[in-house]
């Protein structure tokens, strides 16, 4: 798919994310908007998958370790045709398949249930290891947050993946630098972050996480890298696309009201 098409989809899905959160009355806009461009690139450009056959054994796997940003994933899955777009309006409502955090039992096109931070990379590692063991050539992608790199399990997983030479595993770190109660550097600084991953024997790349061409190049390089996993440090902006949300920790876990939502949507639609 052309970059202009990816841009158009991302714009459309940013609107869907805002609409879903307004309807739900709660949820996490900031991190959903910071990771949507990488999700769009994965699902509409890079990944091998079949929306009409979600359990296709040879599909590439996607794990959203930062489960609170699942509105972005729901928007992508609906757009790709895994379920009807109308269902997005049921987010967080009673009896909905679209739980506040991913639940693969209710919505089987999800690979995993996540939402307790720090666990997703281990799940992705397991899938990659199973793929290698079965001599399958599928790839596994995992989006992790910056805040969750404060959890020890992330580093347990990061230590294990190179041991098993999992070059079929690619982690994208959504480095928007803001977590629930403030700036990551004030809560628990992660720097030097890229050095840490490098020291754990990952192939590392650093890109602008909103530049589609850069995301594509990085994903291609990850696929070509043999013998070890790749970590793509994606420099992103929390709340990207909505000026009053950008860089604001207040919009980590608060849904816009109708008026705010309308303003946000107008702003997104006005962007080129």
């Amino acid at each position, binding site marked *: 798919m052309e970059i202009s098409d990816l841009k158009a989809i991302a714009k459309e899905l940013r609107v869907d994310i805002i609409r879903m959160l307004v309807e739900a009355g709660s949820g996490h806009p900031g991190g959903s908007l910071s990771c949507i461009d990488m999700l769009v690139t994965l699902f509409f450009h890079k990944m091998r998958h079949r929306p009409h056959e979600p359990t296709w054994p040879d599909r590439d796997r996607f794990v959203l370790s930062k489960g609170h940003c699942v509105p972005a994933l729901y928007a992508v899955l609906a757009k790709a045709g895994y379920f009807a777009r109308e269902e997005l309006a049921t987010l967080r409502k009673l009896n909905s398949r679209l739980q506040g955090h991913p639940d693969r*039992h209710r919505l089987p096109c999800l690979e995993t249930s996540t939402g*307790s931070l720090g666990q997703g*990379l281990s799940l992705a590692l397991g899938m990659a*290891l*199973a793929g290698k*063991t079965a001599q399958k050539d599928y790839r596994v992608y995992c989006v992790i947050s910056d805040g969750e790199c404060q959890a020890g*399990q992330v580093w*347990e*997983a990061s230590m294990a993946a190179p041991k098993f030479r999992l070059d079929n595993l690619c982690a994208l770190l959504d480095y928007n630098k803001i977590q629930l109660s403030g700036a990551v550097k004030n809560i628990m600084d992660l720097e030097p972050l890229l050095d840490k991953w490098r020291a754990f024997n990952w192939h590392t790349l650093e890109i602008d996480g909103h530049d589609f061409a850069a995301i594509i190049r990085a994903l291609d390089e990850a696929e070509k890298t043999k013998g070890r996993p790749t970590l793509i440090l994606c420099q992103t902006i929390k709340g990207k696309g909505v000026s009053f949300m950008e860089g604001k920790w207040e919009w980590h876990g608060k849904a816009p009201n109708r008026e705010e939502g309308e303003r946000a949507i107008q702003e997104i639609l006005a962007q080129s």
Partner: protein
Amino acid sequence: MGAKATRVAFGEALVRLGSENPDIVVLDADLSKSTMTEYFARKYPGRFFDLGIAEGNMVGTGAGMALAGKIPFICSFACFVIGRFEQIRMSIAYSRANVKIVGTHAGIGIGEDGYSQMALEDIALMRSLPNMAVIQPADAVETERALEYIVTHQGPVFFRLMRQKTDDINPPDYQFRFGKGVILRRGKDVSLMATGGVVANTLKAADILGQKGVAAQVVNVPTIKPVDRELIAEAAFSHGKIITVEDHGITGGLGSAVSEVLSELGRGRIKRVAVEDFAESGDAEGLYRKYGLSEDNIARKALELLQD
């Protein structure tokens, strides 16, 4: 003591089952020489993964492998693997990942290593998760038969094993039935319901009671969840007196499972024989005496219940 520890029977049976089912993979956290997964590791090095002393990641990795179609056995001391409750809760149970959690060295029977290595809360924790089965074999043959079942079970299982050798209490042709207790001895006065290695002590307690003119039924309860309600109800509606015996903390284990059924039935009385403190280092027999798991104490509890 008898022939074999349940962990050894497990390690041997896993090798055999591994040859029959290529989907079985085994993960360990630097304890394969103790959990006895080293037998499997030697036979199938390509299907064995040592994750190092990082059990949280082992839980998640196992879940990921299960979601990709494998049948992973994730193995460590019960206290260390079940200690990663939050990972088990999310990555295994809530994700409906078909992972088999094997916790060895359960209970105070491990002896000299002391409390830090003794799982005493593991059954309670695993029982609390909606789709988690909890199975604890009492001897080597039951370990083998239960393990054969576990491979076929769809969904997560916690398989609780012991470090020390245990007496053989089941016949060689024993058949494991998931969710069913096994009546080892009939008796009309009181039921002694036990799980794991202490089933052997419980049989001895029934001998002591027999000498005092008390006919005790002895029930082996290998499946703690789902517990055998029918068997508990039979005891509740006949003599109505039940003693539970387990090498686990007093809260949340077999005693609690049986108590829950009894209170729902509104019938029967129970006394629980279990560990009521953090325990300590020492020889297994001495520990069982001090913490009340000896046959003498089991018999004493039964007599107390009968005299109440």
